[in-house]
């Protein structure tokens, strides 16, 4: 399938921008990248080799059916009343392997890999994820309608919030 290079560039730009906003704590701009009906999904592992496959009927690490879920997380972070979020861990996201997987009507799907190094009270640690995105073409440009994060680490040290993923 031929995918136009402008689109590939726009997708890569958006994914890089998304994680950059997280690392720079530009929460409101980050939320704005998501459509209001965007799904944010971090499945849990059903066993050693497979994650859960149906977020509605199975246990997830995070599953937000609309953008309100990430708005809740930002509300909690910004309240400065969350024990786990004060002081906030520092993070750096390194995204690579960005591939546009398909285009159908106004929807574009893409995959990427991400390493997140975080540093907090108990020192530094690095976690890795597979990203699955869906984007929608809108008048305001591409908006995220799905961000699925498959966190390959399955024995978690310390709290995990949106900026760790």
């Amino acid at each position, binding site marked *: 399938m031929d995918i136009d290079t402008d689109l590939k560039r726009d997708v890569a730009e958006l994914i890089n921008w998304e994680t950059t906003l997280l690392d720079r704590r530009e929460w409101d701009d980050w939320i704005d990248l998501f459509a209001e009906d965007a799904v944010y999904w*971090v*499945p*849990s*592992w*059903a*066993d*050693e080799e497979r994650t*859960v496959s149906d977020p*509605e*009927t*199975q*246990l*997830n*690490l*995070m*599953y937000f059916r609309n953008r*309100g879920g990430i*708005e*809740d*997380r930002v*509300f*909690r972070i910004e*309240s400065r*009343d*969350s*024990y*786990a979020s004060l002081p906030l861990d520092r993070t750096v996201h390194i995204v690579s392997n960005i591939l546009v997987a398909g285009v159908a009507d106004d929807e574009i799907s893409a995959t990427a890999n991400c390493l997140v190094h975080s540093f907090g*009270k*108990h020192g530094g640690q690095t976690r890795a994820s597979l990203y699955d995105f869906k984007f929608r073409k809108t008048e305001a440009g591409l908006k995220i309608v799905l961000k699925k994060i498959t966190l390959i680490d*399955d*024995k*978690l*040290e*310390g*709290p*995990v*919030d949106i900026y760790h993923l």
Partner: protein
Amino acid sequence: MDGSFQKNGLEALVDDRVDEGVFRVDRSVYTDQEIFEAEIERIFEKGWVYLCHESQVPEANCYFATDIGRHPVVVVRQKDDSLSGFINVCSHRGALLTPKKQGKAATLTCRFHGWSYSCDGRCVRIKNEKEGFGEDGFDRSQYDLNPIAKLANYRGFVFGCLVDDVEPIEEYLGAAATWIDLMVEQSPEGLEIVPGSSTYVIRGNWKMQLENSVDGYHVSTVHRVFASTVRNREERESLKGLKQTEGGRLVGIVPSGAYDLGNGHMSIWAQHTTPERRPIFKKKEWLEANLPEAHVEWILEKGRNLALFPNVMLMDNPSTQIRYVKPISADRAEVTVYCIAPVGEDAEARAARLRKFEDFYLTAGMATSDDMAALEDTMAGSFASQAQWSDFNRGIQTMTHGADEGAKAVGFDPVSSSESWENETLFFGFYRRWRDMMLDQD
């Protein structure tokens, strides 16, 4: 410690003078690695511990791998539907037998040298047996798996013990059995573990995890932000019914209570001001038609946390949880959480139960993460030997010896009852059991 902790030292760690209004614990119980090693031997490898839920081994030949202290253990469903437990180790060289945490296999075959065991523990095949051990008279049964001394299934919750000399399971559970009953009797079709789980490492002592799960006192400080976050969400999105969160308990404005259930078990409850937001509320009519009134009231209107000594917690709040703790070292423990739910639950209630679980109970959630951070700070502070005592005195003047009215209504008999879940008198039983097992070195 200097090694003198064996008897006098250990007794002094629990300052149990309730008559004088004092109950406190030396914080070296959290930090000292020598004490930790003794706990593994004298508590985890000498008494009952929780292993799994029976729904994790649903059919014959299904297995679930876990641990008792330092012993890898496997629970296996037999062809006659009974459960067996074995040390999960090949008789030959000690490799673990199960390739995965949970699975199904007609025989357990060691992947090192290929020895095989039937699900009842018999050694049924030794690779190249004749060449290695001769043609005649070789007795393979000497290599059968080691069964664990005791295995018991209390209404679906499976417990094991490595020694024979232990009280019957009903006696061990005692008053806590009623708290399990209140969970089980909600569903005539039984309970099941929902697919998926989360394991996390706490940089703290295993006992702190049990304490945290029945510490009502922290809720209105640590979880105040959870309450304000979900309130903000509900206003923003105009949510109704099961999509709303029960908030009264989080801000400390509802009736509540705490029980020392004996044998180290502890529990707390808090009144739900809006029980219609709980998934189980959809079964109200069935509950009322089938259970005594007092049970229905406890099930629908009282959010409950139960800590069973020494390694599992059962929560029945807006969502329902099994939280298993595995001690790793004095300052580290591994915790695995599962959502447990009624079999055949309707889709809306199941989804609400899961979303409430994800909101609150995970290290990636908005409350357990804050609990962990508080716990890890408590661990860091516990190394200060010049500030040596943790106080558990709150409520010591007002506690009721024996059962209060609520306990009598459903027929369990606690050691003591307390009229607020902010009180700490329930921990007396936990640390008395701890002390008694640590001192009993036979």
